[in-house]
């Protein structure tokens, strides 16, 4: 049985994530210590809400180094929503805040108006299909028509295009959807709330 560890840092819908992984036959552990993080086979960092608070809660628990160490060993890691954003170097949400720095880049607010002056409602909430830019195991069975669920006000900008796996379009504006470095994935959308499409991605991730 595959084992997956969800980092419990007081933030985010860990139960939903747990259920989605269990639906794929995984055994779930919640990490509340550095040791548990380092012992993981598949490590997940969920998260919703503000960047600063998320980083503060990780730092408070002394999880930052453990996460960095785990990822440096190229073990499978998945950051979801805020968890994905924290993988970057910094965010401009509520001032400037440092992230984990796993992938080079920053987090910025979604543009309020697109180039045609259409007002973007923020947070952007909805189901969108992905423009997968690179061949990747997790998206092996992903079909262009399938959609996943996004809810966010801030988005990631990676420095290196090599780390950009997929994006989606809000009107005509491309927004980062999936980032990756080594075996560390970040998904802006919620695979655990994206129906069967999301469950399939989780399945593929568990196979790494």
């Amino acid at each position, binding site marked *: 049985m595959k084992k997956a560890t969800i980092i419990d840092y007081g933030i985010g*819908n860990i*139960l*939903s994530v747990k*259920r*989605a992984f269990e*639906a794929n036959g995984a055994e779930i552990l919640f990490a509340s210590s550095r040791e548990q993080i380092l012992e993981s086979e598949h490590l997940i960092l969920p998260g*919703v*809400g*503000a960047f600063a608070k998320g980083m503060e809660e990780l730092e408070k628990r002394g999880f930052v180094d453990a996460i960095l160490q785990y990822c440096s060993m190229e073990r499978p890691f998945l950051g979801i929503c*805020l968890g994905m954003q924290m993988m970057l170097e910094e965010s401009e949400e509520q001032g400037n805040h440092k992230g984990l720095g796993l992938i080079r880049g920053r987090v910025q607010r979604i543009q*309020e108006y697109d180039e045609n002056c*259409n*007002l*973007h*409602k*923020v*947070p*952007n*909430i*909805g*189901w*969108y299909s992905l423009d997968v830019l690179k061949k990747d195991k997790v998206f092996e069975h992903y079909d262009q028509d399938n*959609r996943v*669920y996004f*809810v*966010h*006000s801030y988005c990631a900008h990676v420095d290196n295009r090599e780390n950009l796996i997929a994006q989606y379009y*809000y*009107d005509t504006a491309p927004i980062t959807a999936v980032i990756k470095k080594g075996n560390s994935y970040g998904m802006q959308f*919620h695979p*655990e*709330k*994206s*129906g*069967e499409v*999301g*469950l399939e991605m989780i399945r593929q991730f568990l196979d790494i």
Partner: protein
Amino acid sequence: MSSKRLIARLDIKGPNLVKGIQFEGLRKLGDPHEFALSYYKQGIDEILFVDIVASLYDRNSLDEIIRSVTDDVFVPITVGGGIRTLDDVKKALDSGADKVAINTAAIKDKSIITKVANQYGSQCMVLSVQAKRLDDHWEAYYDNGRERTGLEIGEWIKEGYELGAGEILLSSVDRDGTLRGIDINLVNYISSIVPIPVIVGGGMRDEQDFVDAIKYGKADAVSVGSLLHYQKSDIARIKKCARDNSIDVR
């Protein structure tokens, strides 16, 4: 344009899915889990559960239903009805809900909006607003459409946004459960005064109402109850009609 959402609204009394007419008079329709699962399989975008007696009897007893629904339904779940304190919010989220819809508690003490937004994020805090037409404007009502607030709807919603609400759930006291169509003017008015998504619900008669709510009302999402529960239409038909009208839906 951005992608628009179809949300199924399930009114719950005790263990049952029910439907009311203009917030009075209830009919039992069946097992909420069965309905939710069926809608999930048919491609519903989100599900909204409302405990419609909670605010009368001072409790929110949806937790068990949410817990079991989220075992096999993997789309966003919103819970509303009698969410009064941060503890109620925590219980709802711990059962598996992603968002909470709050009306009465926010009317009585608007600081709860900010508290929820700060603790769980704005995306979790849906301000539920029940609008009733009075003379030349709309007023916000609470306690499931029974009590007046004296607040003009636009002012209240703008304040809610400023306090941290991430989404608005707008229902019409006049239209709910009546299958008389939505109030397009109301929707348009609200959609244009806040930069956060607006979900509109109440009174959908058919697929065209979904289209109108979005095209003319400029709503970002539409919540439907009776239309689906009584099988006057279905999810596939509503979405097809949307696509035929150039609305981007899943």
